[in-house]
């Protein structure tokens, strides 16, 4: 892999930028791999990268039915934070945030990670009690955070309406300065480039149609381009996890629902942080391009259509216009949906399964993007060593039978 640098940019300018190395190869699938990862989104690519980088397992293929990073990685609102309530979740998301902080250097790829801070607004007394509890829990876990007043919120985001006369007045917020946003595509591309350089094969336009097993252990996957053998298969297929699990005769406690987002036309810089609100349900940030990136909620019912219900997005736009009256004059540019796999306790499943050599990393629901690096890191470790990474121990699928749920509906309540 040729490194990107100021010098390489200058050198390639001399050949009119026509001789850049391809970012990843287009390999012909081998007959067999040590590990096959199903799903070439951010989490799958991060898993492949850390398998090769941290565990020296380079005979790996990522099998993707569409193109790399074309699913939920391309559809989220790119918000990154780690202010989760419970120790298990907080530590997992904080590991992720720490990895984000060094990711551009690590991958030699600019993921445009911008620590512009995240505000989670409170509109009721109970909101504020929950926020205080969560911020205290965060600080005990070494995660930055503070409870801020409406005056301070106004200083951070001057366009916000903090009038006590509004329909849902803002009483305060939690503020995580280390939170922020990143360029979603760049994360997938950066991990793919890094993994490719370490020998991982990216196999695109190939859909897994079956998981072949023998004596209770996995032996490979059937694909639209034939059978590919594997000693281990790691599934990272987000909204389609239930479908892939069924191929191996497994059931997962996830339900797939579309989560929507929209962007406005590009406007001049007016919001240099991320604002989220559980109570009125909306979240907004401004991309480097200038468009307001607005996220809505999940549909209340199961669905695999990548669009979502109209009234959900209508509700969110109403909330955003209530919070930012100035935005009522901004025109919408486009809207889309991604299918997320929601878990009963709003926490992911990072787990071995009853099939030997088959692993699942799913159930991230509405908040998986922020966890991309950490998810890949602990999942790679889990797959490589055939036991849960210490930080993934609490996230096995067994918790739905033991009852040891990690209820993060409070911190994950706003879909993000």
């Amino acid at each position: 892999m040729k490194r990107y640098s100021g010098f390489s940019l200058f050198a390639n300018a001399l050949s009119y930028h026509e001789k850049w190395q391809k970012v990843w190869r287009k390999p012909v699938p081998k007959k067999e791999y040590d590990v096959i990862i199903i799903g070439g989104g951010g989490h799958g690519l991060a898993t492949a990268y850390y398998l090769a980088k941290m565990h020296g397992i380079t005979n790996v293929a990522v099998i993707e039915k569409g193109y790399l990073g074309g699913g939920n990685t391309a559809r989220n609102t790119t918000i990154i934070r780690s202010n989760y309530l419970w120790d298990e979740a907080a530590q997992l998301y904080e590991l992720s945030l720490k990895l984000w902080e060094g990711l551009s250097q690590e991958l030699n790829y600019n993921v445009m990670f911008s620590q512009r801070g995240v505000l989670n607004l409170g509109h009721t007394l109970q909101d504020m009690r929950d926020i205080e509890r969560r911020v205290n829990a965060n600080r005990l876990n070494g995660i930055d955070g503070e409870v801020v007043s409406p005056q301070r919120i106004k200083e951070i985001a001057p366009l916000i309406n903090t009038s006590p006369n509004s329909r849902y007045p803002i009483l305060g917020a939690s503020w995580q300065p280390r939170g922020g946003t990143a360029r979603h595509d760049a994360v997938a591309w950066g991990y793919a480039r890094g993994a490719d350089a370490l020998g991982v094969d990216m196999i695109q336009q190939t859909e897994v149609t079956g998981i072949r097993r023998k004596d209770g252990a996995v032996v490979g996957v059937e694909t639209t381009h034939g059978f590919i053998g594997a000693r281990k298969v790691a599934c990272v297929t987000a909204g389609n996890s239930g479908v892939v699990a069924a191929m191996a005769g497994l059931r997962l406690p996830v339900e797939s629902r579309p989560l929507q987002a929209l962007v406005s036309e590009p406007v001049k810089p007016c919001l240099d942080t991320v604002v989220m609100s559980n109570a009125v349900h909306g979240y907004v940030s401004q991309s480097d391009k200038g468009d307001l990136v607005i996220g809505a909620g999940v549909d209340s019912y199961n669905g695999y259509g990548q669009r979502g219900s109209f009234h959900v997005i209508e509700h969110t736009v109403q909330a955003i216009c209530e919070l930012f009256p100035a935005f009522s004059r901004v025109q919408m540019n486009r809207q889309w949906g991604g299918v997320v796999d929601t878990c009963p306790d709003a926490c992911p499943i990072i787990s071995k399964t009853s099939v030997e050599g088959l692993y699942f990393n799913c159930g991230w629901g509405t908040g998986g993007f922020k966890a991309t690096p950490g998810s890949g890191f602990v999942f790679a470790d889990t797959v490589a060593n055939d036991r849960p990474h210490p930080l993934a121990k609490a996230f096995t699928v067994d918790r739905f039978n033991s009852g040891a749920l990690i209820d993060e509906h409070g911190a994950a309540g706003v879909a993000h």
Partner: protein
Amino acid sequence: MLLIYCPHCLESREEEEFSYGGEAHIARPLDPENLSDEQWGDYLFFRKNPRGIHHEMWYHATGCRRYFNVTRNTLTYEILESYLVGTKPQITEVGV
């Protein structure tokens, strides 16, 4: 926007009048005292999540305030039938 037929009101109404009740036809355990952890977990948390035909409960919240069942395709969002709780669906496969 789904247009859902309520078999109680005998009318098709917009989805905002309804709320979703999740998978239909889940039998409450008859002998809850003697369930294993697996059976309890299965009853509480493990749901069918098909990419296709799904039998699900809906509640007509701003109408008759009664539950009924719907057969819907989760991929195309086509609603194939509405039927009363306690009755069996007519449609169980795509294309039937």
